[in-house]
């Protein structure tokens, strides 16, 4: 029982990070139809920029906020410099552009930072809490709480603000959005900034647990993509549930089978979902995209 709980804790913690990556995929996909495989690089940037700025003497919270800003700016640049000029390219062409961008960002990071692994101090110490015989790190609570805060924040943004509704309108019907006076290009740029910021937050929250380096983005992008597939790409709630589910599947797989298979599980999930549930496990409400 304690073991099961332990796997749940670690699975949900990692899963929350996948959920945030999948949310980034979803936000960008809905607004612009682009599947952004550079999404993992935002997570890397969040961790690495915070590490670098903290090492340069900045207080951790300031460094973290700055890192989120950097990732958002990189998101904007990705849209303006790589995606927007290729408007009208095929979906596969756009995917290749995002893969190219991710290689580019990784290359820059390798030069600006280094190739080492880096750690951030846990925000509230390293003393684990005991829960029913299992333990959970305070940092895991930060990850879960931060993810929950982002989900709530996004909900408020999309449901309660006019600009959030304008992004949703752009996602639902681009032509009608333009004809309502919405600058849809700006809404797409905003989506890239938002996805960048969310990815960076994920990277900052999880770095004290998993460490970070210039190349953590690749695997995270694939895991986040698998999570998005699991939840039905384009569905924000599905992205979150898919992320948590993938984290749990990995934790239990690594625990009961072998940790050697852990990273393979995401690929098995992608394949199974593609073959068996092409619209994702959650599927999409019919009214969502008309």
């Amino acid at each position, binding site marked *: 029982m304690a073991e099961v709980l332990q796997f749940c804790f670690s699975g949900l913690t990692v899963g929350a990070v996948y959920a945030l990556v999948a949310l980034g995929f979803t936000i960008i996909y809905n607004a612009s139809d682009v599947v952004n495989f550079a999404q993992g690089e935002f997570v890397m940037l969040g961790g690495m920029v915070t590490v670098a700025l903290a090492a340069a003497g900045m207080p951790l919270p300031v460094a973290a906020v700055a890192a989120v800003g950097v990732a958002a700016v990189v998101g904007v640049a990705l849209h303006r410099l790589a995606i927007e000029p290729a408007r009208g390219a095929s979906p596969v062409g756009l995917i290749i552009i995002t893969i190219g961008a991710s290689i580019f960002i990784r290359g820059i990071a390798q030069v600006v930072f280094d190739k080492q692994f880096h750690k951030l101090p846990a925000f509230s110490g390293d003393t684990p809490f005991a829960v029913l015989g299992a333990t959970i790190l305070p940092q895991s609570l930060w990850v879960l709480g931060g993810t929950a805060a982002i989900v709530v924040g996004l909900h408020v943004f999309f449901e309660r603000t006019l600009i959030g509704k304008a992004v949703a309108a752009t996602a639902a019907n681009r032509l009608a959005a333009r004809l309502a*006076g919405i600058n849809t290009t700006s809404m797409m740029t905003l989506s890239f900034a938002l996805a960048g910021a969310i990815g960076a937050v994920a990277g900052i929250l999880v770095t004290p647990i998993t460490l970070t380096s210039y190349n953590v983005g690749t695997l995270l992008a694939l895991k986040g993509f698998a999570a998005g597939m699991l939840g039905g790409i384009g569905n924000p709630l599905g992205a979150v549930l898919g992320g948590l589910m993938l984290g749990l599947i990995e934790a239990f797989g690594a625990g009961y089978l072998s940790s050697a298979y852990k990273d393979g599980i995401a690929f098995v999930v992608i394949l199974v979902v593609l073959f068996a549930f092409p619209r994702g496990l959650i599927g999409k409400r019919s*009214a969502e*995209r008309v």
Partner: protein
Amino acid sequence: MLAVEGVVTAYGRIVALRGVSLDVSEGEIVALIGANGAGKTTLLRVISGIQPIQAGHIHFAGESIDRLAAHRRVAKGILHVPEGRQVFGPLCVEDHLRLGAYLRKDAAIAADIERLYARFPRLKKSRHRAAGNLSGGEQQMLAIGRALMGRPRLLLLDEPSMGLAPMLVDEIFDVIIDLKATGITVLLVEQNAVAALAIADRGYVIETGAIVHSGTGRVLLEDPKVRASYLGL
């Protein structure tokens, strides 16, 4: 108010408009009729800025708008209700009306929404429903309502009655007549050419990307060539 001069545009290699000129004066209802594929939708798209032009000029209220992005033309008061009831499926009716006023900064938005509900009681009943779940007629009313929330000076309507039951068609035409009474200028594209010309001050007939006839609604309705080729009479 609107002056289109020698406009040319193409979709790839398909030339859709080959030098179209047309004028709409303030307060008029102008009908644009023509066969399928003649270029009616394309003409509305170049006016609202969704479709770029390759040659010619478009002036609105004395200014050249050729190079303005679509959302800037909305800010100038050009509102386009596109063909096929383009609504935001997952968003509710009220969200559509708020988004219709997206560029407005005045304080009358809430009052305008209430006025719209008074004109379209069925939208009020469905105010919190997702647009994707509304009937075709309600979606068309919503698309028009959303455009009206943008305070149009010129309203471009693309086949607003298409696919609607006869009673709803009458309702749409009533709405258009009301719009004229409130001072909104209308450029109307309609399959239902007889009904459109009957309420229009003037009309244009477009054929394979060029205007071939024009005149007052009555003159076109009585023109034997127009009657035979476009009105099916």
